[in-house]
């Protein structure tokens, strides 16, 4: 096993989880992760040790942004609706989740604007520190804190709204 494999393969779940929440569908998330590992291998010389997970997630995020840019320029406008899980009931696992009470939660996170969604996912699911999130997203810590706070507020509002509807 190479040093790259030893350092980066253990974070495959994190890479996929972030990519999956960013792209909001499985095939695109897989492509983003695959490409991120190709890039990671290329730039691994620049990895000076430290937090491998944050380093990899930075690349996943940048790869996603490039990918999204391509989607937009590919004549078809990047359609948030098309890329939302509502439009792609792709596997039974997802279907089961959606039929449960978790459906609302997932939909509400998916509905968050990208900058809130990624911050929330990195904090709540990847359990990154504010500093790590700041590094991954190239943001000041203060911005991370305010985005996280707004993300939570929006999420609560969304859940409340869904609760009232049902």
């Amino acid at each position: 096993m190479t040093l790259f494999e030893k350092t980066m393969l253990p974070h495959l779940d994190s890479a996929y989880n972030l990519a999956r929440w960013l792209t909001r569908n499985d095939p695109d998330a897989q492509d983003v992760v695959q490409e991120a590992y190709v890039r990671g291998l290329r730039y691994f010389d620049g990895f000076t040790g430290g937090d491998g997970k944050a380093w990899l997630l930075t690349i996943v995020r940048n790869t996603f942004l490039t990918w999204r840019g391509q989607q937009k320029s590919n004549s078809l406008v990047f359609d948030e609706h098309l890329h939302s899980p509502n439009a792609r009931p792709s596997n039974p696992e997802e279907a089961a989740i959606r039929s449960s009470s978790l459906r609302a939660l997932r939909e509400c996170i998916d509905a968050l604007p990208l900058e809130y969604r990624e911050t929330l996912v990195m904090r709540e699911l990847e359990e990154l520190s504010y500093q790590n999130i700041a590094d991954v997203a190239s943001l000041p810590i203060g911005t991370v804190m305010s985005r996280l706070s707004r993300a939570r507020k929006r999420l609560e509002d969304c859940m409340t709204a869904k609760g009232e509807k049902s």
Partner: protein
Amino acid sequence: MQPMIEPYLDGELDPNRQAQVLDHIADCSSCNEEYRRMQQLRADIRAGNLYFSAPDSLRQRVLSTVRNPGKKPRVWPWKEMAMAASLFLVVSLGANFVFMSRDRSENRFIAQEILSEHLRSMMGGHLVDVVSSDRHTVKPWFSGKLDFSPTVKDLGPQGFPLSGGRVDYMDGRSVAALVFLHNRHVITLFTWPSSRSASDASTHNGYNTVEWTKDGMIYWAVSDLNRSDLQTFSNLYKN
């Protein structure tokens, strides 16, 4: 204090600050309420099975990518070869002009032609005109079609079984093309009489070629086989 509630929840405060916020939450009912809501939200998220673990197929894909950087995972090699071939035909048309001068780039030109023929034969499924692993069938087949008699060997016992032969046109003349298999790779060995001296191994578009001369004949082996296996093949053929 309100803005400190989330950093408190996220464990981002130093112990002193942490204690202060905790005291405050105990005394401030609105803060207390917010803290509970935030706690609940976090509990919902974490209980929600919202984490997407990487599928096994992705694990395999990534692993094979990082172990063979530069190579796309091979889904269907023939399709890939066909695509490479069509790309190559475009390139080789350009190469016709670039390599026209008959000097030391001549060998490169032949290498291009050889690769082109190799790919074309696989694209069209026109690998061989005489299908046989028996050199005593293949060799006589060429007489009457060529003005020379190629050396035909079967390297089946060494892992490179003869699959057949065909006649190709190259370097301004008819040449023998012998086809060998190694695992799932196709090797085409072109040979014709030539006084030219051979250069050696080279790689074009991911295909390897090995060239040698013997007894007034020139030999060119081309394949997508890795270079060392192709070298093994050529060494076996030479001896």
